[in-house]
């Protein structure tokens, strides 16, 4: 039926029966020898199209797959030979991030000034700027009871434990403790020496697991 069917939207007349449909197409797929050399240009060009696409695909994957390495996230990079490259992190940057990430800033505020009468300030605090022995212990294990900072007594709140010790809700590594202390001791005009992870680790090893400190206990330390 080569005559186009008349327009009938309610019915949409068909021009081919199912049997003839199957038969006609089966013939097209048949593997008969092509004696007449009837192949048309189109299938050949399709072959070229597909080959071109595959060539492109191979090239693209070669250039931008990072050699299928599970550690390569940047499509322009190649797998790193010989171990993992350790990236140096600035402890102050890490400390700033830790301080402001709903941990320290909740009480001591972003300004480090605390809340008058409730949370002691860190700015110019003798505890922060004083000996490393005390300040490391405070952050590692916490501090309970009355403490005097810059001549004012604070006893309303307790400092929680941040280190990897029993009962800590934070479980920060010694690196993180050192970073946040370094940040606190050098921010807002504070100017005390940086604290290294090794110093924290030494005190952590010496004290082991213990409960929070009190100000009197700390005062006995050098």
């Amino acid at each position, binding site marked *: 039926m080569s005559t186009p069917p008349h*327009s009938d939207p*309610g019915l*949409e007349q068909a021009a*081919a029966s199912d049997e003839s449909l*199957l038969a006609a197409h089966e013939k*097209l*797929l048949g593997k008969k020898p092509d004696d007449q050399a009837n192949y048309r240009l189109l299938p050949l060009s*399709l072959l070229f199209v597909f080959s071109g696409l595959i060539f492109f*695909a191979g090239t693209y994957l070669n250039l931008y797959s990072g050699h299928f390495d599970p550690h390569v996230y940047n499509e322009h990079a190649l797998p790193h030979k010989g171990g993992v490259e350790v990236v140096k992190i600035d402890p102050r940057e890490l400390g700033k991030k830790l301080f402001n990430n709903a941990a320290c800033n909740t009480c001591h505020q972003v300004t480090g000034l605390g809340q008058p009468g409730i949370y002691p300030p860190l700015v110019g605090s003798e505890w922060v700027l004083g000996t490393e022995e005390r300040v490391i212990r405070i952050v590692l294990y916490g501090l309970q009871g009355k403490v005097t900072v810059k001549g004012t007594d604070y006893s309303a709140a307790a400092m929680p434990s941040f280190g990897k010790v029993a009962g800590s809700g934070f479980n920060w590594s010694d690196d993180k403790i050192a970073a946040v202390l370094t940040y606190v001791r050098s921010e807002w005009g504070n100017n005390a020496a940086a604290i290294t992870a090794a110093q924290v680790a030494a005190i952590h090893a010496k004290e082991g697991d213990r409960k929070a400190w009190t100000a009197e206990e700390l005062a006995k330390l050098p």
Partner: protein
Amino acid sequence: MTTVQTNASHEVTAIDTAARWPLLLLIHASIKWLVLSGVLALIGSIQLVQPVFLSTCAIFAHGRIVAMQESIFIYGWAANAGLALALWILGRLGGSPLRAMNWVVVGTLAWNVALVLGLIGIATGDATSIAFLQLPRYVQLLMVVAYGAIAVPGVLAWAGRRTEGTFAAQWYAVAALFLFPWLFSAAQLMLLWSPVRGTLQAVAGGWFSQGIWTLWLAPLALAPAYYIVPKVTGRALPSYEFAPHSFWCLLVVGGFTGGRHLVGGPVPAWIASLAIVSCVLLLFHYFVVFMNLRGGLGRGSTASRLVAVGLLAYVLGGLVDAITAFRGVAAITQFTFVEVAQQQLALYAGFTLILLGAIYFAVPRLLGRGWFSANLVIGHAAIAFTGVALLVVSLLGAGWVQGHDLLDAKISFADIAIHTRPWLLAATAAQGILLLGNLLLLVNFLETACAGCCASATPTENPFREPSTMEATAS
């Protein structure tokens, strides 16, 4: 009914009458879901330009509306309609009436009850966070079982076919029947029952949401398209010898496109690169589909015009998919309305228009009588073309504006919302137009089914051609 069965020279044979009511049940459910999906899409679209709209009630929160709309569209409209047409085509080309049709009725009821329960779950806050898999966990096993029941006659018709040789429409229908249970159950296992860890979830989610399109919805749309185009034109498909390659290209390469939404994400670079390459390789499939089915353009009546426009959108969608997959383009289009536009181009302009055309072709043959109103058919097609074009273009515009604005750190988020607003207003109008068109379909379908059901089942005269007069010719 009996007259139709005994009349052997009628195009409508026992193959159609045996499938009549179970398949009409599926189509009936699908059309109602399509209308409901349109209502929710309209509400969701209004909320984008008027955020306070219906915002006081938790059920109508934008996230839940969108999740419900997507679920209804995929599992309500697309699944019911696609399965009905796949079964019908497998039966007709298999050469014998479909068997075990009771399974279809039971399966349809179970599937749609599960969907309703799942939607209640989403409305009350139980949605999962995975694209196209938002239905809560507790209905999903039931859906797998129900799907199996609906698919039984299709598998029987394929395995017990009486005809010599097979046709492309059958390949796509059978592939869709078998691939969905695999996709759906594997995704459930990896994402809901025993979730994989970390970024692997994003990879699995991307695989599933792309797979639903390339491995299930696309074959479900291509099956009726490959059937109807040569049926209406009466000519064998040109370049048909490449159709098997195109079929396998879609099935093999289609599953690897999942990483295209992970460009720039926290996954190894090769996953995105492989997906980009797969999107490009699929161009072969789209090109062959276009070469095969280009004969359907400008021939026949409204139903084949719907199929033809749907096919054009399908091919165009593949092209757009390949272009936007590239990292340079994705830098602008990713996470913008361009992706929504792309999805609508594939799911609405492509899949839905083809399926609508197929429904307009199949229902008269299932019922043995023409549509109740030919004018409603023409009206629906005109409305659907207008609505789809407006929807896709306006979303593309919104996405382009949004994508460029987002790259400029000086433009505030509120300003971006203001810039996209006119485009989104147009998209909202488009959703309204589409809803109106689908209501016309619902009315027409109910009237037609009623006429076939309540009135005496004997049409006054045989409206169809006799098979002996219909001969497919090689072009």
